[in-house]
């Protein structure tokens, strides 16, 4: 009787599994086609020396070696690090500060929030163009101001160092609203009673911030750091629309370099090798930060 029941039950369960597999199969195939196929194709191209149309002859790991031996790659890696670090920590610091400032209820709070979100909401093409008008030309507002202050010709997009700073500031400016929203959501999770209890115990505002707010919001902070780091490393339009990676490649991040190498210099093997290096760095970064999230969750 028990055996018969088992057989009787196994058949519909097996059938259900088959059906579910059948239902999932098209989606799985789609995933393979959409994700795995380009990845495999890119991997093949990265070990060939071909054109944008045909893979060309097999060259092993030569493209990777060429990329690693190119000073331009290391220059781009350095700028990517600066760009990402300033985007992550700059936008987080600003976003966190604004989230704390906007936490109490006051008249016009909603309007402030909307205004502060604008840099993130407005399309990047529009913001990049407006920054260009603000900075690029002799008669633009900031160079004119600099001249009026006796600073001479300040070329925000023409001087390599200034261009690097400008691009990083621009990135912080378009990214802080995202961080502000993440931080505001995290701050909502801190119960008012915790602040009250700590105040009764004599904790100052700074002590509340360092010993309550930061630890309680740590998980959300790490998640927002991971997201912003990935957004920044992969951020092509912010840089390209403002400086195209120049002047003198000063603002070429790895993603910009990969694009230029592939589509302007027509060296797809090298361009894809750069992209694979980027992927490896992002995976490593994500693993480290995910561990921090787990640690923060346990605490």
């Amino acid at each position, binding site marked *: 009787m028990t055996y018969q029941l088992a057989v009787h039950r196994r058949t519909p369960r097996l059938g259900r599994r088959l*059906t579910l597999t059948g239902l999932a199969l098209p989606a799985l195939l789609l995933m393979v086609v959409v994700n795995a196929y380009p990845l495999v194709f890119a991997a093949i191209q990265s070990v060939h020396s071909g*054109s944008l149309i045909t893979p060309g002859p097999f060259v092993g790991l030569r493209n990777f070696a060429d990329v690693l031996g190119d000073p331009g790659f290391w220059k781009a890696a350095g700028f990517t690090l600066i760009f990402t670090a300033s985007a992550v920590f700059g936008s987080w610091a600003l976003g966190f500060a604004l989230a704390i400032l906007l936490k109490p209820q006051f008249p016009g709070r909603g309007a402030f929030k909307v205004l502060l979100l604008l840099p993130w909401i407005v399309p990047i093409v529009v913001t990049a163009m407006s920054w260009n008008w603000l900075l690029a030309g002799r008669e633009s507002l900031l160079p004119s101001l600099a001249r009026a202050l006796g600073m001479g010709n300040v070329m925000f997009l*023409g001087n390599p160092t200034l261009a690097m700073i400008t691009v990083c500031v621009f990135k912080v400016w378009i990214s802080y609203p995202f961080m502000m929203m993440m931080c505001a959501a995290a701050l909502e999770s801190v119960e008012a009673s915790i602040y009250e209890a700590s105040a009764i115990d004599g904790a100052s505002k700074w002590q509340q911030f360092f010993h309550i707010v930061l630890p309680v919001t740590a998980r959300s902070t790490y998640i927002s750091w991971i997201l912003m780091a990935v957004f920044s490393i992969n951020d092509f339009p912010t840089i390209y629309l403002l400086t195209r990676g120049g*002047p003198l490649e000063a603002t070429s991040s790895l993603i910009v370099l990969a694009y230029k190498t592939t589509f302007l210099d027509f060296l797809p093997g090298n361009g894809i090798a750069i992209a694979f290096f980027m992927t490896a760095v992002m995976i490593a970064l994500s693993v480290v930060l995910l561990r921090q999230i787990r640690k923060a969750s346990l605490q």
Partner: protein
Amino acid sequence: MNDKAVFAQPMRRRTFLGGTAAAAAALSLGINKSWAQSGERIKFWDMVWGTGQSYTDAAKGIADSYVAADGLLNVEYQSIPWASWYQTFTAAGAANTTPAVSSGAAYLPFYFMEEGKMAPADDLLASLDKAGKNDFLPGLIDALRTKDGLAAVPWSIDLRVLWYRKSILEQAGADVPTDWQSFIKTGEALAKAGHVGFATSGYGFHGIASVLLNNAGGLFNEAGEPDCVTDRNIEGLDFLHELVAKQIIDPYAIGYDYSANVVPDWASGHIAMGFEQVGLPGKMPAETAADLVVASPLTSVSGNKGAAYWINPLMMFKTTASQQSSEAFLAHYLDNLHLFWEQGLNSDLPVNKSITDLPLFQNDPNLARSINEWQPVGKTIAARAKYPFGALNAVDGGSAMINMLQKVLQGESNSRALLEELQVGLVKVLNP
């Protein structure tokens, strides 16, 4: 009936899976049918040239007016945006889904020719010869001829000529330059009056190309190998260094984008002189356009004259359903090109003498000078190479040239060192 009841019924599951398979088969048949249908027409891809939508409408009109002769296929027009156009073409090339016929950027045909994707246009040219319609301006066909045949036929030219603002030169008490020395004098007078005498952005090397080609310089030897460190090129860069040092070139230009900064500077009068497209007045307000004048080609320090141009091609791909149909359609299209200029829809120059001889060109002093004086001395950036080649795409707008331009604009003045660096950069992209 709950979900478990549904899953427990094998017939229904089979029905579902069978139905899915039937739907997939039906879809597949449908797709096959549409493929078959599209095979009845050859495809013509056209970039968005000239005036945008009005140009596209006119081009589509020419394509739609084509009626194929018996046994030949009709054509289907498709407009292709410039955004990511390299990706569009190369992805199609890799997938063998290129159209039968296409317009495209100057050096694209050579790239596809080397990949074995192009149908040479020699037979088409021979048929135009036979019909007495081969009236292309001098030098254009030679510039499109590769060692494997004619890569494409020309349909318009992006020619760079020296424009100046008449009223501003007069106000500055400057003469119209005729050679490099007088160009510097005029530039100095303009700089003194707060104007720019040599228009450029930090990302377009058309200005540098104009100077190098004006001095009979070039980037390659006859075999098509990089050959940058030559006396003519050194003289060209020395000239540019002088323009930078004397602030005849805007110090801010290194951070300039062409559309966002250079065009408005022309319109405002900040820029008063520079090598630009023949269609520059079309980008300007009416008052500025009326003040713009084309100068005669400069005589360079070596006594040469030259100009830079980019020949816009019409090319045929091997993916056509009928090569004869491709050629017949292109002959029809070339026959009707005059409509673009007659309707004011193209800011580049035409390539046929029958069109450049029209009163609308010869009665306009700027266009007449461009055609009669500048076009005959025009060269592509493949100048000095016997044949054009695919890697020109990586030279035109590639990192090596842009980096050299930006170093010049930054004031680096060792011409030989800059050209040696350019040589290394070009070797890298030519011999990956």
